[in-house]
């Protein structure tokens, strides 16, 4: 019985990053779908997108890896642009997902900006940000 519990715990612990991002994604998704207030929906959407950021970044980590920045001292060649073959790739965290997520963060910010400006326009038109009140106004013409 205890072994079984340990296995489950191990399973969760080993994939902790995936569980985190999935839970976060579901939280955001829930807020996006179920909440009534438009700004809350937007917040949910942002959480949703951030979860994916976490997912990517977490996939790039390594146990004992360091940040992927080269010190000048590590190159042995006289040519400063030439990266030495002695660089041990296994020491560094994978930089590519980080780079990708920089882009994704920008996309997220832009989306947030557009969403908020649309929300402002909605507020100006309907005087409220609650979706049910807006629907009521729409139905009444």
């Amino acid at each position, binding site marked *: 019985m205890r072994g079984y519990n340990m296995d489950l715990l191990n399973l969760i612990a080993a994939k902790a990053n995936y569980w985190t991002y999935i839970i976060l994604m579901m939280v955001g998704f829930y807020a996006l779908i179920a909440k009534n207030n438009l700004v809350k929906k937007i917040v949910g959407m942002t959480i949703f997108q951030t979860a*994916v950021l976490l997912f990517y970044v977490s996939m790039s980590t390594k146990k004992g890896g360091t940040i992927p920045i080269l010190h000048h001292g590590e190159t042995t060649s006289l040519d400063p642009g030439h990266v030495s073959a002695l660089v041990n790739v296994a020491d560094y965290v994978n930089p590519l997902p980080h780079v990708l997520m920089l882009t994704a963060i920008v996309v997220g910010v832009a989306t947030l900006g557009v969403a908020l400006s*649309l929300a402002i326009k909605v507020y100006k038109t309907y005087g409220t940000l609650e979706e049910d009140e807006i629907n009521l106004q*729409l139905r009444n013409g």
Partner: protein
Amino acid sequence: MLNTFPAIIIVVPLLAALLIAGISFIDRRACFPIGVAALLISFAGAVAMLVNVVSTGVAMEYRFGGWAGPMGIVYVIDHLSALVLVVITGIALVNLVSSRQTIIDELKEKDGAFVALYLLFTAGLVGMTATGDAFNLYVLLEITSLSGYALIGLGSERAPLASLKYLFLGTIGATFYLVGVGYLYIATGSLNMVDLATIIPGLMDSGVILFAFIFCMTGLFVKMAMFPVHGWLPGAYSEASSPAAGLIAPLTTKVMIYILIRICLSVFSVEYVFANLDVGQIMVWLAIATIVFGSVSALAQTNYRRMLTYIIIAEVGYMVGGFFLGNKMGMSGAMLHIVNDAVMTLCLFMVAGIVVNRMKTDDRDGFKGLFRSMPFTMAGFVLAALSIIGVPPTCGFFSKWYLILGGVAAGNYWFVAALIFSSLVNAVLFFRLFEIAYFEPFGDDHHGESPGAGAVGIKEAPMIMLLPFLAVSFLLIVLGVYSGRIVTNIIYFAIPGGII
């Protein structure tokens, strides 16, 4: 020079958009010509590339920053992407030119911003089509979507809300796609499409690849408004301004379908999708549901543009179903329909633009008596309607030709039935409009000779709207007659060898 074209066709509109955004503060009148010029360059480039690819039979490649794949971002122009690029740039160009007056009238001081967004949107679409990198696709997808949200939001009073709804669903879709790409990266370590295609066949039993596939597909389905995640489309497309609708409606869903085809064929490979996963049948059922739902919903609409949006949903079903039939005819039909449907939709939305311009309404009643007052517009409208219904020799018939042949070849007679059902419903929809335009208002003028054409108040659309529109309607017949050649010379090359 030619090998820089893949970059030029996206960079030019992108830079022009920035330029226009700046210039709009100084001299608003310069915005429009710059926009048209940029699109013209892109269109010329796209046509040149298509000609090149067809004549040499070899795909073109452009490496950004000189970095070769799979490390760098590479743009690949093969037969299918070249064809779709011509469609995108062509439609964007024609729509911009014909919408000039409407942009000035409806958007007033925001016209510079509008044209800038327009160019950004087009640049995004072009990039999505040309790119050979999975993540780059996401970036351009979002560029397109964000410009789209903004373009739609600049429409009627209800537009911001519709756009916001679109934004929510669209972001979900794009994010799902991003998750899918993430799983792909975890499993393969690569983002380059060609590279992925070589790695995935060795990983067919992997659960990670399966999840990647599911997430990517789901994301794309949301973006292309398949049933049941179509909810954003009717509102967004009908509340947008005419010029925006004329750009977004013909192109967005079609390019998404192109991406679906690209991902299934070039990344995940045919063996995986059809043999290993065997999702073909389920997808066709989903497509049938989309077709039926779209057609039936269209019947219930009294607003012309809303009716068009549901027709678009049904047409998406055509293409997805045709592709997932898994045979040569079906896939050719789906790819051909990308081209044909884009042109047909453009035509119909141009009619909406003209009717709104003259009659100030996009409701069905705006069509009253139009056969008498706008005979040329109606002539083009009749051609577009016949194309959607599927009457030869318009292009819509020939798409259906391939799709039905594909259905028969696959033995999937439900799909054939859905296509026929949709054609009949479209006939009802458009003849209802013809009736309104032809019979109403009911008068008592059974007698009395009416002299030559010009007498009884012909108030046609302005030339700048009418001429491009008539050219596009005429194109429907040209495309129809050339469909065999398009398929044999271009589309057949896009279908992998193993498909019969």
